[in-house]
């Protein structure tokens, strides 16, 4: 039986339902669970969108999760899944960040890797290789990002890192499911062409 005040919506898992209720009750455990369940992938999405800028991506993700926890009453499970709602918040924060970024000029972020981050995962002879492969991957992601519109890139990334359904992606970016299918198709085509050109 559902707890008092809960909204029963078809398709929302009991686990997610419990988490939302915990957040509504301002439970620190619920916030921690929210972080554990969604934080890493939100961060991954933000980092991809910010051309590998891990620090800013983390700031965006932390802000988004805090906002989500504070404003959980605004979450309407009838309109979106919790995951799509969170991605929507991250996306809005990213747009603000990208707007600010247009005015800054520096080394492309896709050509930067925080040194301490690499030394955490590699050392000695592996360090150079780790650094190089990470930079190369960032570069290629940035190459794809350049070939796609912002929305196409977001849709493609969301479809890959969290295996969100087209419906969920649509909820996150405010588009219809049909539009997402079309965007995904276009994004894949452009990405394919770009990657093939890059390989050539």
């Amino acid at each position, binding site marked *: 039986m559902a707890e008092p005040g809960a909204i029963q919506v078809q398709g929302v898992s009991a686990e997610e339902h419990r988490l939302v209720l915990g957040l509504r009750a*301002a439970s*620190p455990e619920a*916030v*921690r669970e*929210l*972080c*554990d369940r969604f*934080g*890493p992938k939100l*961060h*991954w999405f933000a*980092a*991809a969108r910010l051309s*590998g800028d*891990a*620090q800013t*991506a*983390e700031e965006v*993700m*932390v*802000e988004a*999760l*805090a906002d989500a*926890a*504070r404003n959980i009453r605004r979450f309407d499970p009838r309109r979106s899944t919790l995951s799509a709602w969170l991605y929507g918040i991250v996306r809005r924060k990213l747009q603000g960040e990208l707007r600010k970024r247009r005015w800054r000029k520096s080394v492309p972020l896709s050509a930067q890797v*925080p040194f301490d*981050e690499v030394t*955490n*995962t590699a050392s000695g002879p592996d360090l150079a290789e780790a650094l190089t*492969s*990470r930079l*190369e*991957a*960032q570069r*290629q*992601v940035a190459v*794809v990002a350049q070939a796609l519109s912002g929305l196409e890139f977001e849709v*493609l*990334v969301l*479809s*890959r*890192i969290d295996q969100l359904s087209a419906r969920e992606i649509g909820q996150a970016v405010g588009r219809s499911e049909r539009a997402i299918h079309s965007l995904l*198709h276009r994004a*894949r085509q452009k*990405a*394919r062409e770009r*990657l*093939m050109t890059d390989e050539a």
Partner: protein
Amino acid sequence: MKHECVDEQFTELLTAARPELSARWQDRVLAKVAAPATHRTRRWMAIAVGAAVALIGLGFVPIPTGSAKGAFSRALAMTNQAPGVHVTGRIWGPVGEWRFEQWFTKDGFSRYDLYDGEQIVWRWLYAPGERAMGPRVKETEPIRRFREMLEEGTLADPGAVSEDAPLIGPRVDMWAPNDGEDVFPKPVMHRPDLGEPVRQDFWQRLEEQKATLEVRVEERQSLTLWGGRRNVADVYGHRRPGAHVEVLILGNLHGPLYAWLGPGDDVWIHMETEAQTGAIRALEQYKRVNGRWELVYCLDSIEFGAEMSEEVRNPELPEHHVRLEDTWWRERLPRTLAAGESQDWRVALHSLEVNRKGDVFLTLSRTPKTEVTWDARTRDGRLVEPIRSISLGVRDELGNQYLPSHRASMPQGLAGLNWMGATLPTFWGRIRLTRGSPAVANRLPRAITVRVRNEPAKSIPELTGVRSLDQDDFESFMERFRNTYYQTITLGTFPVSEVQPGDDLIADAILRTER
């Protein structure tokens, strides 16, 4: 590559590029959630309302109060009648922001100072009552830069003519004596053929612009709580392709702005004037770049009837600056060594000098016999800059060809023979030519033959009857073009009786008056 492969490859890339999270990031989320909530929405609304009230109160947001028909014309008339104007402002171009300060008086005095940061980089000063053939004073820092400009020429605009433009030949650097450096009109003109300086209006009349600009003027009255009632004129101009360029001084007091506006460019001039007097109080000029209006020129202050002090008229030289006077024209234009004419042109050779290294220095003038228009189309049919080209064929008695000194190493094929926006009926040109072939180095020429090759006064389509340059037609067009396009005038063969002692006679003519 199928979609599944793209997905797979992209996921691999994303995974490889996936960054690590820092330690204890969850604690930061918890801390933010635990922090006292701020009523952001209400706070931002309060800030927004406060800002809006402040902006209206301070006069930044004008309230439209009606039409102001004729405001633009009144502003132009008032400016032209003013005994003197002093303005300061800024210009933006590819190399960044520059500051300028200008003075004009009704008696023909004009001064223009250009600053890069705090350093003055150029100063033009025109004094009335002198039969000057160039700026009376030209200062620059460092002097090396000026010499480089002399040697390289300042009018070259390689982007103006495409590689396909069928113009071949050495380029002549023409330096009109009205300002010693270029052929663009300035508010005050010194015309040697007219004797005394002729004052031109500060502003070109709209009627004069209509041949080249499509102009739309919107005028309205607006009220700001702080600034009071003002008239606003927004002038939108679209430069027609192939049109002359001089019109682009429309709406500003600053000459060089024209250079940044090419065929097809859009310009928007925003002007605010006093409702009572018509005096301009604010002026901004924008250029459309990638669909957005980009500020390229603005006045920070404008003062009518400003007193021109002695310091303004005869400024002290800043430290490390050099005073220059260009006497080249004054000494050479009154003479004519030879003259000739073709169907459309009259050409005169005013001087032919040889320096101690064997370089040839020429001074020429060219006048069209009829009122003409120019345009040209490239191979793909695009319009390029209006062209007034001239090429020189200069050889010595041994057949050595002479080419512009800074391009002497290049054989031929100098596209870019165009002169943009000339309004004067006569061009004056001076050029240094260096022997193209090194085979007979160290031997000074004994006689020089000068031929001038001109473009016709008509446009290419008018001349050839070919209006569409399809790929198939191109070769036949070129054949007709080569045969009919140029009008060559042979000025004659001139013995070299005297060799000048200097290396760069043009630079020396300016630098020798250094004080």
